[in-house]
């Protein structure tokens, strides 16, 4: 079966140690986590893990099954890129003098729709949100001028289709 990108969304209780439990499932099958983001979700007190992997659908399905089996996991889903709206964020730290010495940098900022977060005498910080390739393109454009620091976040994603997670939780509470 063909490998492709899958976004795994895990809704869980906010519990110390659960990340260890979930990452262990990937470890056992030697699947690299390409990106990981943990945040609160649309439901009060429920955490959401967004995990990106590059593997086959068969393995993704098995992994999701084993994640869902963990006691504190409420529900886990997986989706292809086509089924989700997804973004990443990145920060670029660049020497301030370049903003004046290299006119092209201002064009890069505009062309890539990025924002200036802060400016000081020594450096300024650009923030860029978008698809990974868009961030990569901006990185490539800035690189010749010198990037002092660069960081990119994990993917965050919402699905195009509804996720019936709230109903599921209500159902659990009724039982």
């Amino acid at each position, binding site marked *: 079966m063909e490998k492709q990108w899958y976004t795994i969304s895990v809704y*869980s*209780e906010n519990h110390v*140690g659960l990340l260890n439990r979930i990452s262990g499932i990937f470890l056992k099958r030697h699947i690299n986590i390409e990106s990981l983001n943990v945040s609160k979700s649309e439901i009060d007190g429920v955490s959401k893990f967004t995990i990106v992997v590059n593997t086959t659908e068969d393995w993704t399905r098995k992994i999701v099954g084993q994640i869902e089996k963990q006691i*504190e996991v*409420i529900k886990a889903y997986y989706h292809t890129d086509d089924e989700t709206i997804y973004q990443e964020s990145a920060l670029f730290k660049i020497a301030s003098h370049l903003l004046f010495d290299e006119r092209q940098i201002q064009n890069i900022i505009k062309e890539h729709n990025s924002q200036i977060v802060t400016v000081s005498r020594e450096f300024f910080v650009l923030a860029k949100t978008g698809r990974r390739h868009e961030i990569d393109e901006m990185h490539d454009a800035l690189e010749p001028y010198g990037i002092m620091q660069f960081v990119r976040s994990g993917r965050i994603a919402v699905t195009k289709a509804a996720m019936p997670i709230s109903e599921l939780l209500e159902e*659990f509470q009724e039982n």
Partner: protein
Amino acid sequence: METLKTKKEEKKKETTMRISGAEAIIHCLLAEGVDLIYGYPGGAIMPVYDELYKFQDKLTHILTRHEQGATHAAQGYARVTGKVGVAMATSGPGATNLVTGIADAQIDSTPMVCITGQVTRSLLGSDAFQETDIVGISTPVTKWNYQITRVEEIPEIMAKAFYIAKSGRPGPVLIDITKNAQFDELDFKYEKCTGVRSYKPVPEPDTAAIEKAAELINNAKKPYIVFGQGVILGKAEEELKALVEKAGIPAAWTILGLSAMDSDHPLNVGMVGMHGNYGPNILTNECDVLIAIGMRFDDRVTGNLATYAKQAKVIHFEIDPAEINKNVKADVAVLGNSKETLGMLLPLINENSHPDWVAEFEAKHQIEYDTLIKNDIYPTKEGLTMGEVIEQINEASGHKAVMVSDVGQHQMIACRYAKFKQTMSNVTSGGLGTMGFGLPAAIGAKMGAMDREVVAIIGDGGYQMTIQELGVIFQHNVPVKIVVLNNEHLGMVRQWQELFFESRYASTVMTNPDFVKIAEGYHIKSRRVVERSELKDAVEEMMASKDPYFLEVKVEKEDNVFPMIPTGASVADIRLK
């Protein structure tokens, strides 16, 4: 006002009591119906042991000679009673010594709660004396684990631990309790856990799937059942028997499914898997509908998956959704508790029989009997065989004993030839293959079923891994019958070396001590058999003993276990020699 206040205080007194965390742990155990635990004390768990001393009339603690023994004893107890086994240890090495038993319980779905002491909260993460991250270490091999650092957490977490361990697909839970939480006091009140919102132990059965399964079974020409421990854990033995009889379906078992169905039932066709029976393996690839009940298609069962039952429609009855399509693709997946789903299936099943199909199993059995079984259990050659010892025990026990086995050749022979009338009678380490499991598990099994005969079948290798537990048998006079089948080798590894490594016996030859003298050192009645002529008498003497008994049988050194499906081969390519 004053009266009201007093009344309030009185009410509070009724429902709660001010006690230490350590005492609270004891009350939690008592509330869960625990009256027997296995363990080993040490610094970080001492407050709990101090309470165990005070509560010894209500709660028996058995001091095993190694923490690993405590877990296996708890497993043995759980496997014959269906109750949650409990093991306790201190922090650090005490806790890490539990890990093998926990992993064993995880892969064999055994309900167990392990309680470990931990260094005091303020020392966590400081590499304190006997500090290990047992929660981190045990995460991959527990159904759930938790570290209690505040005394108030004790009742709720303990209740949750027992609920999770025994509900749904059972498994081990580890609760790590820091020393401060044991010393501190709380207003104790216990409520049993009845649910965890993020955890659905038993999936809802799907009526449509059951109807589809019934249709496939009713139209099958060569239906075949393979059942596992899910039948025992789900208490579905009666439903299984009813299905087998109503539809006339031959049924085979996995090693952990053994004893769920009477060995002498005419439609019980034997064991599947690497050292299973000839017919049940070969005919897996000839059936038209394969009905898997409470089993997980382990690689030791399926052999090469690419050639496993490809011709058959597969119906998978299973409680754990993660098992569906994990190894073998199911045409129909029936999720739920096996008792419930089989109960729903039964009325939809037509009465039927498949005499030609059943005759195929009989014919294959005859081939296996003539080439193998006969020589295994009624040998004419000089050396003693493991099979004849098991056969002798069958005769002496009337198929009524609980059999506990260790891991290796003797285990395969024991499971192949032991006969059972009663469920929950076969205790063995199936998934993990833990050598050293047998002796401590037999202690737990006996203490869980004092009214039954418990026979431990152990090899000379595995016996020496946990031989120290003879101390428990002696101290508490636990009347288990220990049979060591001594071939002076790590027999199964030696067999593989002979077959696949050109007989290079790397580290599989053992120079053993005098096992009879060791047993005598523990004041356990013992006997050694080296001649066939002594075997019957010795086994009868052992079975008649009211006390613990140790029997060493010197068996042929280089016998092999057959049939065998070599690793990676198809079930259809099972070898008779």
